[in-house]
């Protein structure tokens, strides 16, 4: 068990200074995530442009892993389409739960979460934001594009 693998500098940095922290007003979509076991709470607000997440913010309280994961996620999905996000979520899920071979290069900075897989008790912390994002997107029908 390698503690420094879990708490990489990128994770510690995003925990200390989370990016895209706060709340969008008005927002096109919103969802709250809650991990009842540990009390982590997260609220996501999204602004959509057609099929794409134009902007998003998160707020809440959680451990370093959940905060950093949410912060990294907001950076990673901003400007992406639903389909791209779904694919990215699949890659993140694999990275956290069943890392096999080479991780997908499109993960980029999200690779900092690679150490979580070694700490099964903490996988939920890292995936809470992604579940919340899925909930927000599912609740929001893709608006008819005006472009």
């Amino acid at each position: 068990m390698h503690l420094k693998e879990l708490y990489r500098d990128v994770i510690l940095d995003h925990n200390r200074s989370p990016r895209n922290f706060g709340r969008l007003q008005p927002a096109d979509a919103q969802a709250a995530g809650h991990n009842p076991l540990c009390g982590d709470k997260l609220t996501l607000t999204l602004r959509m442009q057609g099929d794409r997440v134009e902007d998003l913010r998160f707020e809440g309280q959680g451990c370093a892993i959940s905060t950093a994961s949410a912060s990294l996620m907001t950076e990673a999905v901003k400007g992406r389409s639903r389909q791209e996000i779904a694919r990215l979520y699949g890659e993140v899920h694999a990275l956290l739960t069943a890392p096999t071979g080479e991780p997908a290069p499109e993960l980029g900075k999200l690779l900092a979460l690679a150490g979580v897989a070694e700490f099964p008790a903490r996988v939920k912390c890292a995936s809470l934001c992604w579940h919340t994002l899925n909930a927000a997107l599912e609740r929001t029908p893709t608006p008819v594009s005006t472009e």
Partner: protein
Amino acid sequence: MSTNAAVARSALSPKPTYDVARVRSEFPILARQINGKPLVYLDSAASSQRPLTVLRAIELYETTMHANVHRGVHTLSQTATEAFENAREIVRRFLNARSAREIVFVRGTTEAINLVANSWGRSHVGPGDEILITYLEHHANIVPWQMLCAATGAQLRAAPVRPNGELDLEAFRELLSARTRLVAVAHVSNALGTILPVQEIVHLAHARGVPVLLDGAQAVPHQTVDVQAIDCDFYAFSGHKVYGPTGIGALYARESLLAAMPPWQGGGDMILSVGIESSTYNELPWRFEAGTPNISGAVGLGAALEYVESLGRTAIAAHEHTLLELATERLSALPRLKLIGTASAKAAVVSFVMDGVHPHDIGTILDSEGIAIRTGHHCAMPIMEAFGLAATARASFGCYNNAEDVDRLVEGLQKVRKLFG
């Protein structure tokens, strides 16, 4: 350890009669390494470890005595019945109940409270009545009452807590009213370690003719409990928090109340005779023990209580209090660490938060050092919310912990601070 610390330690060390090294040697799991480091087990408030004597008692029962209880005429059935009823007598003695008829075996504190809520509660509580608890309760002493209230139209009231984690007794007194049907409170808070003034609570409640249930899960391992001296009406505890097995616990209920309570669960063992139309229920306490009980669990619980008695509950309490004072002093000295719950009367539980570090990160980092603590809401969300916290880190001490465990905890927390800055 520096020489100064060693000198300070020897001044603090408990009575020489308490041989913690010997106690530790009786708990095989303490020899384990966790993540390459010797285990420091500071999570006894969640579940304590078991000494060899308990494991051997269970093994002896399983290998030489087992059959079903209260049934056969054959030798083993009688041996099993004797072992089971002997365990009940040990529980009676441990709590100083008047009679073994007042001791009902259950799965644990949770089931004991559910039994009272369903049996006593449904026959004594109606619309407009109130159940009075406190904000310090474990979920096991909240949810059964919420369910009872939902079923009967009664209301649940909760007495608040002062900033240091002590019960606000004045507020409790004011909440106690002509509508109160039952007071149900913790003897010791699992989240903060606060020891509640149960004698005074019982006195106040009885002055109004209100019976009192005490959740003793966190008290029984740490102090002498005398249900006659406390004069409570119900007392619940779990085996696994007092060095016994999981899945077994006991409910003490004052005989006059228990005798008038309807059975909760129906089945074998709780009846004298059964016809298709109706049945005659068994005597106390078996009327409340439907089905084949956890016999080996009861035997293990009996062995655990005898083990605690062999160490001496006063000696255990004194030893743990020394560790509590040491841990409180050492943790208070750490920068940007805040203790949550500083009641003047406390069991050996230290709940704390660290500025800028979530309790779960503390838990993971300590685990990498072989140190087991609990992090989270401790199944006591209302008190966490009252303190404006989602979670705390909690170190809880048992009869086998020593000053070195406190040293290792402090070193671990220094590592946490170093990593998180």
